[in-house]
């Protein structure tokens, strides 16, 4: 299939999605970001570049990904037919590689020899380390110390792929601090280094560019569901941290007004507790990490520590296009707790033989809640953004079973 770099709406202003977005970064980085902007504007319309991206997506990452009907889950929930968009089947086990391939090929064209990345669960770090190895580029990954403990397997996976992993001890030692560290490193080395941001966040053009590279998900899914069912889905459901798999899953359905777009935020121990990462439910407008968007913060504009069982979703912000889709009402955003996500993790494993990433399990959990609202002639698509192998030990601990690989 073709990549989808050209389709659809542009931000209303350069770098803006309504009031959200922009480029709030130090002057030191401005020319580097503008170089990415110019490069992206040029290459997104370059057939040769697009062909290169498509070739690597198809022949290296394994696209297109399947749209799998889930018969036993459908029967159990007793409502809409449930389809799973299988980003877990991509090489490296998540949707992250879609964006990494696009940005890494762009970085190479811009003459960069080194990729740096932040990672939470490790999925984006693994994807970046993988593509760096494949393209012969240097790679440094920044990861909160807490997350390196939660996701030790992915840390070693990155090392195996030749990347250097830098545990980050500052602040809360989680994803936001990894972003801080990666931004600081980029200000030291803009000449040879591309900061391969892993979500639809950061300064323009990253939110738009990452969305474009991820929009292959909805481009495929839209064609696949029409082929399978002859009709559009009643809802598309995806988990949201920064929001890249959700933006990719939503994007080509945005003009289809009858399709509900539902983003599932990590509520942690509950959106009414302090241990939550539900940005849209609990956050407010602010400026952070290069963008104006919604953030979990206090009344003085200090960024709040956030919590979720999922290291990939415990980020205190959300991409600016999601903030716009929330403000306009085109997409809806709901909180899903740790407990609900773990239940869904087990449910999908047992009913369909598919172990989803704990991040994706948040989307499954919401589908469980709403499937019954739809008739049996309708269908809904859950984006399974990644596979759950990385989470097995953590879920075991959550259920009181200590697993050690010895």
């Amino acid at each position, binding site marked *: 299939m073709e990549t989808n770099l050209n389709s659809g709406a542009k931000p209303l202003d350069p770098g803006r999605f309504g009031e959200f977005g922009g480029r*709030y970064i*130090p002057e030191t980085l401005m020319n580097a970001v503008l170089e990415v902007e110019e490069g992206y504007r040029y290459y997104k319309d370059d057939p040769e570049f697009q062909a290169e991206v498509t070739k690597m997506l198809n022949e290296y990452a394994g696209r297109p990904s399947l749209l799998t009907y889930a018969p036993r889950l459908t029967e159990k929930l007793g409502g809409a037919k449930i389809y799973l968009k299988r980003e877990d089947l991509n090489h490296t086990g998540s949707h992250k590689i879609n964006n990494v391939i696009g940005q890494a090929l762009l970085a190479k064209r811009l003459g960069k020899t080194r990729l740096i990345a932040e990672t939470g669960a490790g999925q984006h770090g693994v994807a970046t380390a993988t593509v760096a190895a494949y393209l012969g580029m240097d790679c440094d990954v920044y990861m909160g110390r807490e997350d390196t403990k939660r996701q030790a397997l992915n840390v070693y996976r990155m090392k195996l792929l030749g990347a250097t992993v830098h545990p980050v001890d500052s*602040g809360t030692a989680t994803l936001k601090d990894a972003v801080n560290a990666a931004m600081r490193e980029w*200000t030291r080395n803009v000449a040879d280094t591309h900061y391969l941001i892993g979500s639809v966040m950061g300064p323009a053009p990253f939110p738009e560019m990452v969305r474009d590279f991820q929009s292959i998900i909805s481009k495929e899914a839209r064609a696949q569901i029409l082929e399978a069912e002859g009709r559009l889905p009643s809802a598309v459901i995806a988990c949201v941290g920064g929001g890249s798999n959700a933006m990719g899953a939503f994007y080509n359905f945005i003009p289809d007004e009858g399709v509900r777009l539902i983003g599932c935020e990590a509520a942690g121990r509950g959106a009414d507790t302090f241990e939550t990462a539900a940005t849209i439910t609990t956050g407010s407008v*602010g400026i952070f990490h290069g963008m104006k968007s919604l953030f979990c913060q206090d009344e*003085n504009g200090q960024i709040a520590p956030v919590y979720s069982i999922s290291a990939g979703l415990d980020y205190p912000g959300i991409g600016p296009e999601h903030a716009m889709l929330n403000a306009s009402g085109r997409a809806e955003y709901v909180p899903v707790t740790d407990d609900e996500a773990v239940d869904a993790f087990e449910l999908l494993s047992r009913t369909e033989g598919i172990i989803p990433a704990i991040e994706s399990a948040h989307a499954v959990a919401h589908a469980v809640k709403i499937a019954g609202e739809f008739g049996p002639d309708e269908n809904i698509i859950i984006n399974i953004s990644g596979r759950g192998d990385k989470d097995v030990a953590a879920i075991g601990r959550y259920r009181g079973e200590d697993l050690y690989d010895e």
Partner: protein
Amino acid sequence: MTNERIAKAFEKPGAFIGFLTGGDPDADTTVECIKAIEAGGADLIEIGVPFSDPCAEGPVIEEADLRALDAGMHTEGIFEIIRRARAEGVTAPIVLLTYANPVFVYGTERFMKTLARAGGDGVIIPDVPFEESAPYRNAARNEGVCLISLIAPTSHERIKMIAQEADGFLYVVSSMGVTGVRESITTDIGSIISAVRAVSDIPTAVGFGIATPEQAAQVCTAADGAITGSAIVRIIAKYGADAPKYVEDYVRSMKDGAAGRERLSA
């Protein structure tokens, strides 16, 4: 726009600007250290508004920010520090360094008005580049406050655009990376200053990594001033409430360096 206190700070060559994080370790110590920075001969005082995620700072200032926040400092408390410093006789211009979010959340117009009324003269917002700066600059100008612009070693052709709109003075980032002490400054400061001079007569001050009188003297051969932050913050971290006398001595040595004066005692 000009601000009288800031303009006066740059009347003579070799200005020295001292930075400290507001509320580290507490407001009382900050006020005493501000007085000490002025007593040591600084021409302008820069107060950092502590932020949870200061992306342009190195570890020294980040840790100071987190200490200040843990001790309960907040935006209103920073304005109170300025009021107290003015009430206790500090006459040097005072400029805040803050990330965009505390300003935005406080309300940009309200922030600038409160800053002006408290006795502040300017604000530096490192994560607001030129392209995003108009709302902040306009709100500041309405209150007679200067939005201080930054230029970096990577600014190149952007220097002209930035310098032409700059108020107060231009903050020249000495080198790539984040704030913090450096062994040496390798950037060609002279050529950056020349690019500024071609389009504007706004004063320039160089910061990031300047910790010794020799470094201050070096940058002041080309620029109008030198800025030191992390080295002062380190002294405050080390001595706490006893820091003011050490800060004053250190600032005096830096001012001597910036002004090209031989030190009387080594």
